[in-house]
């Protein structure tokens, strides 16, 4: 805790437990974004092995085509699907689409922006990510 500013800090930002599914989606979006960037950099390096010819390519392929490699790829598929679906939801929200209309608030003041449309979007992103991961695992381990 920084006592001067009393900022909640990284722990507060990363804690997804207190403010509902929207905050979980915020956290997953960041995590999946960073994960995908790391994978993308790795993928660019991985594919550059083609310049080493057939031997070099096959050598590197042997390193990645393992059980661990397949599990990592399945997680990447899940991150990719979640980041895409949730990203489209967030982008629409950023444009003011589906966030409700301004109106005189009534007690108990349920926020219109945290509506079922966005909640369905978040749950859909999570479910689709899980399905895509399962499919990826089935393809990779089914061979």
């Amino acid at each position, binding site marked *: 805790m920084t006592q001067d500013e009393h900022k*909640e800090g*990284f722990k507060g930002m990363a804690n997804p437990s207190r403010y509902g599914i929207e905050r979980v989606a915020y956290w997953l979006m960041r995590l999946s974004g960073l994960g995908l960037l790391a994978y993308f950099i790795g993928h660019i390096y991985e594919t550059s092995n083609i310049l080493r010819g057939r031997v070099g390519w096959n050598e590197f392929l042997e390193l990645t085509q393992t059980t661990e490699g397949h599990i990592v790829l399945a997680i990447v598929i899940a991150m990719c699907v979640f980041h895409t679906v949730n990203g489209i939801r967030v982008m629409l929200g950023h*444009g003011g689409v589906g966030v409700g209309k*301004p109106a005189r608030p009534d007690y108990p*003041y349920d926020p219109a922006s945290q509506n079922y449309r966005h909640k369905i979007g978040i749950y859909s992103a999570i479910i689709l990510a899980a399905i895509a991961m399962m499919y990826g695992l089935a393809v990779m381990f089914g061979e």
Partner: protein
Amino acid sequence: MAQVSSIADDQSSKSITLRIARYNPEKDSERQFMEFTVPYEKWTTVLEAILDVKKHFDHSVAVRYSCRQATCGSCGMIINGKPRLACFTKISELDSNIVTVEPMNNFPIIRDLAVKFERLFDTHHKIKPYLDRDDTELESDAKEFLQSPEELEQYIQFANCIKCGLCNSACPTMATDSSFVGPQALAQAYRYVADSRDKGKDSRLKIIDDSHGIWRCHFAGSCSQVCPKGVDPAMGIQLLRGYMLGFRS
């Protein structure tokens, strides 16, 4: 950790343990919690419990409050882990035998539960929280600015802001970004941009189009979930961003 018990006057009332964060930045190296056993009724608010502690056990507990009816926005604090107004939170609604009160996050602590509001007021002032137009009512032949009920609906929700700072305390960007404008100021920027009497839209959008401006909001919505007045800052911010992305004109 200090512990104090009360003698409940009324044997029929229930009691809770009130844990109050104690910290004086000028003297203490770290925060400590003091525990008090406080009687409460169905209608007792957290603020009343804190004032009970001040009256009977320790008058040095620092807390800011004024109206006691969720109008002044003074008594914002973290109650059982979430930012809430102490005067607007009944102990019976918390469903817990232990009520922990801490100063709001993302605000410098003055002492105990009282925090500094300078940054909130600075950012609020930065977005020009007033009608911005060249002609004014000071002109000799001027009339009042007329507005239809539909035009009023566009912003009246956001005019309910009491500047309590709960939204800024809950915001995940505010948790780490010292330069972020914050949901309170951004929602107020929308309040004035959406006001049909205002002509300062372009200058306001320019102010918030900064590397620590509106684009650092990621629509996590925590601000709207804690707002005690139904302002829904997340909605205001997204509608405001709609102007910048060309979704609104």
